[in-house]
């Protein structure tokens, strides 16, 4: 169905690429004007070329639709079926990412070609496998968060504002706008433990960071956050279902 909306796909991917592109040009321009961030130009360029792809692959948009289903009673059709109520959301999430990849990948490859002199990617397949794994974990964690936020609709009428705040925090602290490595040094301890960084910044770091110890620690923290969000999602969902009244169905 998504393939019928080709321009929707193109526009969506263009909007995803524009933010890191602007950021990339601005940072490179600033460095040309004498700015000295704590990372190299190669690091910055590679990071910002990859970030739109990673952001897309680990994204989730379930919260809004889930909240709407709960509010309007659309859950009923799923609750009477012998399968998980989140099955459709997971399938939609994966399918949409595949479709988006078709349109986004060429754009990212083009960016990589334009800035090829400053893009440095590892050759070891092990690194790429690790990258894939952290992407999957990051996506799972984001989906878990979405289910938690969407499930708040069991208690509150209006979840949109909460979701908006959450999206803002995720946008900034995930590293989708700028690398976490350039943020003020004092924020370091917080940035290392907060969950959103493990959706975008950490997967990219698996390709850029040579330090195995740092990567091992990062993997452990990411795994912990994934488990925590899945458990929280399950708890909130089960509690919420007890309150569900199916109004409007």
């Amino acid at each position, binding site marked *: 169905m998504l393939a019928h909306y080709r*321009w929707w796909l193109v526009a969506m991917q263009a909007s995803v690429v*524009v933010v890191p592109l*602007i950021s990339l040009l601005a940072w490179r321009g600033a460095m040309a004007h004498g700015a000295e961030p704590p990372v190299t130009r190669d690091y910055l360029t590679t990071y910002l070329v990859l970030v739109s792809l990673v952001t897309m692959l680990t994204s989730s948009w379930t919260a809004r639709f889930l909240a709407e289903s709960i509010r309007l009673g659309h859950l009923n059709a799923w609750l009477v079926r012998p399968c998980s109520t989140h099955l459709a959301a997971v399938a939609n999430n994966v399918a949409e990412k595949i479709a988006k990849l078709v349109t986004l990948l060429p754009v990212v490859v083009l960016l990589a070609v334009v800035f090829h002199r400053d893009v440095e990617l590892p050759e070891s397949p092990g690194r790429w496998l690790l990258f894939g794994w952290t992407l999957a974990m990051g996506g799972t964690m984001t989906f878990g968060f979405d289910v938690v936020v969407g499930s708040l609709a069991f208690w509150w009428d209006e979840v949109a*504002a909460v979701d*908006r705040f959450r999206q803002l925090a995720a946008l900034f602290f995930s590293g989708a706008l700028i690398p976490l490595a350039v943020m003020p040094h004092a924020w370091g301890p917080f940035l290392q433990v907060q969950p959103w960084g493990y959706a975008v910044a950490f997967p990219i770091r698996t390709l850029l960071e040579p330090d195995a110890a740092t990567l091992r620690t990062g993997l452990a923290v990411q795994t912990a956050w994934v488990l925590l969000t899945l458990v929280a999602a399950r708890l909130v969902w089960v509690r919420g279902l007890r309150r569900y009244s199916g109004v409007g169905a």
Partner: protein
Amino acid sequence: MNRRTVRVTVVVWLKLFRQAVARDLQFRSQTWLHLLAGLGELIVGILPVLILTGFAGADPTVRQAAVLAVGVFAFTTGLMDCFVSPGLRRFDSAIRKGELDLALVRPLPTFFYAVLRWIQPAELGRCVSGVAIVVVAAFTFDLGLGPKALVALTVWALAGTVAYGAFWADLALLAFWVRSIEPVNDLAAAWRGAGQYPRPFFPRTFQVVLVSFAPAALVGSFPAEQLTDPTAALVLAPVVVLASCALTTLIWSRGLVRYDSASS
């Protein structure tokens, strides 16, 4: 457009604005939350710029330009997100679901009724923040602003708001030709972020694009530059406004001819 139409349009718009304010006051908690979220978006938008310019070395003018740009950006985007972007974001849906019909049968300019009747007053909070940022920056950096600079800033900020609003509308109006183009709104919102960064940071070609075809610089960095160095002739501002509105009008009239309202 005749005098009657202009008069009625203005009267209806004022009533719609009053209605929107009354509606927002009705949903107090939601309005406060959206106000705070709007400020949050502003902060999230500003921080990368401030972090970037924090590394900019010894040149203090870069930081000044950046802070002024974010202040002007907050003001112009607050205006846009209050009066223009809510309607543009709904436009694709209006085309696909045939809701444009409801605008077409009204004795008012259809573009006005379809796009400009959706108003979100809570976004004006960002305008206030933007003005505050500019004022604080002016005092902090001891800019000594004269009336000429302030007039140049205000005129270009307003012209930039209209020009970028028109550019955004041009993208949204693609809905007349393309089935489901709603993400162009996110594209337009993302692109205007370039206006927060000092213009000299961008490559030359990009700078030209940012003040012409896709005028993101006109909603932030360009008007801010007029504050410290009012070089651009003010007479160009209405030219920019007229040119952008003329293009939007052309696209709109072509699009309406194509419009085959969705079956009920």
